[in-house]
């Protein structure tokens, strides 16, 4: 005999259309806004499919939703949640899809039962079941969201580390945002590869866009500088703001071996000097020869 019992099965089966109608009406009400005809139709289809899957699964002898009999229901729910997560529904809306089934289902079970004891047991079991399914939707919803976040992080990582050629054999690496280990790895690799490709002697690492420098970030910077030096290129660190200079000294980070400049312009001037170039002014700003 099924542990989730007769009564649930009976109530699910007896008045399919009525249950469906009442449920979808409740869902529409819970969403708190007017649905378009297309949305309503989609909701109807989804609800019908879910009820069919639930009936199928509840008929089997299984009150544990991790069992293979529930595969259909679980697949359907995770698909539904992830599609809803992508279209921007809230987790509450997604979970309400399941939880709003309780009211119409329980009222039907109450109507179909004569024995209060049996009714209480059955309702308890059904509520446990529906809660689990609700949690499942939330989990699937969150998983989809996390996938989205991970993908965005990856894109951010790729976008945010350009290596710019400033002059013959002079590269610039404007860093924006916090440096963590993963990003430093990418930054370091990009910079070193660019050094090889362009045969650059000097690389300017500009940290104007780095909000805070802690010991870890400083260590990452030093590693990048050391690696570039091993390959035969010199690094200049520029864009050090007053607060950051204070922090670096308070932290006791040793940046003595590295050339540091306050602004990118200063660093560029040094780089030009080292490569043997000089910038001269040809004209005054008003256009006459100076």
């Amino acid at each position, binding site marked *: 005999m099924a542990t989730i019992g007769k009564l649930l099965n009976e109530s699910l089966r007896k008045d399919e259309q009525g249950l469906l109608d009442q449920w979808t009406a409740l869902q529409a009400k819970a969403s708190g806004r007017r649905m378009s005809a297309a949305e309503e139709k989609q909701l109807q289809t989804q609800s019908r499919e879910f009820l069919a899957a639930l009936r199928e699964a509840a008929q089997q002898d299984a009150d544990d939703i991790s069992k293979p009999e529930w595969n259909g229901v679980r697949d359907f729910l995770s698909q539904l949640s992830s599609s809803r997560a992508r279209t921007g529904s809230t987790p509450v809306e997604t979970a309400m899809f399941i939880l709003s089934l309780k009211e119409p289902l329980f009222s039907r079970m109450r109507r179909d039962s004569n024995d209060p004891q049996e009714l209480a047991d059955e309702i308890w079991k059904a509520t446990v079941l529906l809660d689990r399914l609700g949690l499942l939707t939330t989990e699937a919803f969150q998983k989809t969201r996390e996938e989205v976040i991970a993908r965005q992080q990856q894109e951010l990582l790729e976008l945010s580390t350009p290596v710019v050629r400033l002059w*013959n054999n002079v590269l610039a690496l404007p860093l924006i945002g916090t440096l963590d280990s993963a990003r430093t790895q990418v930054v370091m690799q990009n910079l*070193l590869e660019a050094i090889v490709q362009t045969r*650059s002697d000097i690389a300017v690492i500009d940290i104007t866009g780095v909000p805070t420098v802690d010991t870890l970030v400083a260590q990452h910077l030093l590693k990048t500088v*050391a690696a*570039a030096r*091993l390959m*035969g290129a010199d690094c200049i660190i520029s864009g050090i703001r007053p607060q950051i200079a204070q922090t670096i000294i308070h932290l006791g980070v040793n940046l003595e071996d590295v050339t540091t400049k306050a602004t990118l312009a200063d660093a560029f001037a040094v780089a030009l000097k080292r490569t*043997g170039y000089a910038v001269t002014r040809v004209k005054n700003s008003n256009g006459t020869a100076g």
Partner: protein
Amino acid sequence: MERIPILKMGEFLLVTIQVDMHDRLALTLQDDLTEQIVKWHAHGVLIDISALEMVDSFIGRMLSNIANMARLLDAQTVVVGMQPSVAITLVELGLPMRGIRTALDVEKGMQTLRISLGSNGHPQETDGSVED
């Protein structure tokens, strides 16, 4: 036995590592190079490791040692053409090879050697111009 060739170019010795370094090879290179420096009175050594794709801590240390030994024998040493992956590995291994000169390629390495030897009082034509 497998050996890494050491070529004499004027006052410089040129060592090009074209094969994967293994421990034995590194030790042989150390012997050969120190002998050759003394034999030819070389004042500059250029070690080209552009073909070296992988290093471990031992090879990293050997490179550093070889360079330091050469310096002890009064030969300036420049390590050229290190691959990015090798540089990252050495830094992560904590072997930043302090005191060793590096250059991007053989050409720039030669230039570095010429400039530094010229200023050290060794008879060398000094080419003070800076490359574009």
